[in-house]
């Protein structure tokens, strides 16, 4: 296996959150922009990155330094992980978080995503796919964090999104009516997943006609942020929510953008409405800062911690309980499979005899389609065929799915979209594997050949 490369980072500047205007281009006030940047001095203009960009946000002709249009960029980082010259850089909050870890008043929580546990080892000499669970929790603890596994929040996402999907099926497929279904009357099928923030921004910018179809359930990280500062603060940690500093640790650079979306301060709004914090408390976000897997490794290195040498033993704590359904969120098709496991159970009244819905898995195909027969308990075992599609990588596949839906809008009930091919395991915040120089070999002038 190839080695892991160092990716250059830069801290956010004042301009990163925008000025006073409600909108600047496609960004709302307060939303982070310029998260991914091409370093003009290091870009050779090889044009490779443009092939990986889902939104045609990169401009520049061959041989000329390229640049990213802030308006079109969805901050997915696919250009960054695939630039052969390491010319693309990422906004990083490592310095800010290091400071928080030294603040005795701050209750700093690490919130690690599924895909980080199969990649962080690579930063320390391990192989891709090395499972790092307890070792990772222990490493975070040693670095001064408390743990709240995003996988636990992913289970919460399935319970919410699964319930929402079932309501949509009852309203739109079975024709039921009732007070509890009024809300879904405005949200027709197909149901689109909402947990990939790059896909959500892509839809908001380029396919607004899909907005009513996108699940109203927040992403696992955003559910986790809101629950950390309400439920966990009160019932588990017994902490003042204002002291909790939530750090999501993600395979993703678009999550940096997501965390800055102004509506994601639900804990603050809720606590204020319940008079659990003083009315004059200034607003705080549910997620305070985001670390990519690479950034987390950097924190460990600065603190002299190697997660691979940490103990693999640990008691199971409330905040780290999760199921198989949650952990597969990190792979393309995983959210779909997780949702189907629970939807099947609720609709049919029995567990799937085999929870592995391998049909929707994989990384080779751009679009995967499947039909899952589900017997309905409420209708004496009448079977409905749930038609699903998984969009594996957004670059050209979103347009294709939209085309298919225009042809026949009843084609699918449930569509999962992941911006990154293969899912979050291949996210823009993951360790970057160098390709070496072999591909350049035929091009190199003789004296430069190794």
């Amino acid at each position, binding site marked *: *296996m190839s*080695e892991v*490369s*160092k990716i250059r980072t830069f801290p956010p500047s004042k301009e990163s959150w925008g000025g006073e205007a409600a909108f600047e*281009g*496609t960004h709302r006030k307060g939303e982070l922009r310029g998260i991914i*940047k091409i370093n003009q001095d*290091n870009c*050779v203009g*090889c044009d490779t990155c443009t092939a990986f960009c889902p939104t045609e946000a990169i401009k520049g002709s061959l*041989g000329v330094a390229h*640049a*990213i*249009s802030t308006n079109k960029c969805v901050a997915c980082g696919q250009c960054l992980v*695939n630039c052969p*010259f390491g010319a693309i850089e990422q906004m990083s909050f490592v310095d800010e978080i290091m400071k928080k870890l030294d603040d005795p008043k701050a209750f700093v929580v690490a919130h690690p995503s599924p*895909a980080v546990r*199969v990649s962080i080892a690579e*930063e*320390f000499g391990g192989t*891709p*796919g090395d499972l790092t669970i307890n070792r990772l929790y222990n490493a975070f603890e040693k670095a001064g964090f408390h743990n709240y596994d995003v996988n636990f929040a992913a289970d*919460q*996402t399935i*319970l*919410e999104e699964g319930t929402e999907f079932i309501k949509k099926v009852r309203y739109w497929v079975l024709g039921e009516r009732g007070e509890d279904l009024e809300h879904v009357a405005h949200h027709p099928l197909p149901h689109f997943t909402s947990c990939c923030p790059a896909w959500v921004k892509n839809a*908001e*910018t380029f396919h*607004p006609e899909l907005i009513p179809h996108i699940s*109203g359930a927040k992403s696992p990280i955003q559910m986790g942020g809101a*629950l950390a500062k309400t439920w966990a603060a*009160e*019932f588990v940690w017994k902490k003042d929510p204002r002291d909790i500093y939530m750090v999501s640790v993600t395979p993703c650079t678009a999550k940096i953008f997501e965390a800055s*979306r102004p*509506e*994601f301060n639900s804990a603050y709004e*809720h606590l204020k409405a319940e008079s659990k914090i003083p009315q004059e408390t200034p607003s705080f976000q549910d997620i305070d800062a985001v670390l990519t897997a690479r950034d987390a490794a950097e924190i460990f290195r600065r603190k002299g911690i190697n997660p691979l040498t940490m103990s693999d033993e640990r008691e199971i704590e409330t905040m780290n309980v999760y*199921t*198989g*359904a*949650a*952990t*597969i969120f990190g*792979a393309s098709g995983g959210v779909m499979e997780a949702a189907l496991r*629970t939807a099947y159970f609720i609709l049919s009244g029995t*567990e*799937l005899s085999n*929870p592995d819905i391998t049909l929707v898995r994989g*990384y080779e195909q751009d679009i995967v389609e499947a039909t899952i027969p589900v017997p309905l308990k409420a209708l004496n075992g009448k079977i409905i065929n749930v038609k699903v599609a998984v969009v594996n990588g957004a670059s050209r596949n979103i347009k294709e799915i939209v085309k298919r839906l225009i042809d026949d809008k009843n084609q699918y009930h449930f569509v999962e979209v992941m911006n990154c*091919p293969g899912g979050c*395991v291949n996210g823009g915040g993951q360790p970057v*594997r*160098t*390709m070496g*120089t072999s*591909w*350049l070999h035929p*091009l190199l*002038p003789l004296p*430069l050949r190794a």
Partner: protein
Amino acid sequence: MEATKENYFYAEKPVGQLLSRRDFLKAAGVSVSAIAISGYVVTDIVQKRKSYIALRQQGLYKDDKRLQKINLAGSHQNASCLKVYQDMGTKPMGEVAEQLLHTKTYVDRSNLLMQGAHHG
């Protein structure tokens, strides 16, 4: 941070050191053949990344198998999630769940594309 660099291997992108933009242009030649070369790089990256995507996915499915064996296949089996609903006095899509776990804010950004954010 020098010390840690020695402890864990950590490489700069090797091509970056080897080739400056001018070298690259010389090597590739800004010509039709260069376009073919870029195409080759993309195919090569796509081929290579498949191997680590597959390995990382396998890691997650291994974790899934481990959890299935202890009766934790589906999210409805997560006791911590059920405790959340109990403690908060709500249920999936209940009032409090709607406030904390759902969003109504998706923004149509399409008509803002033409307004002048700068090209960074």
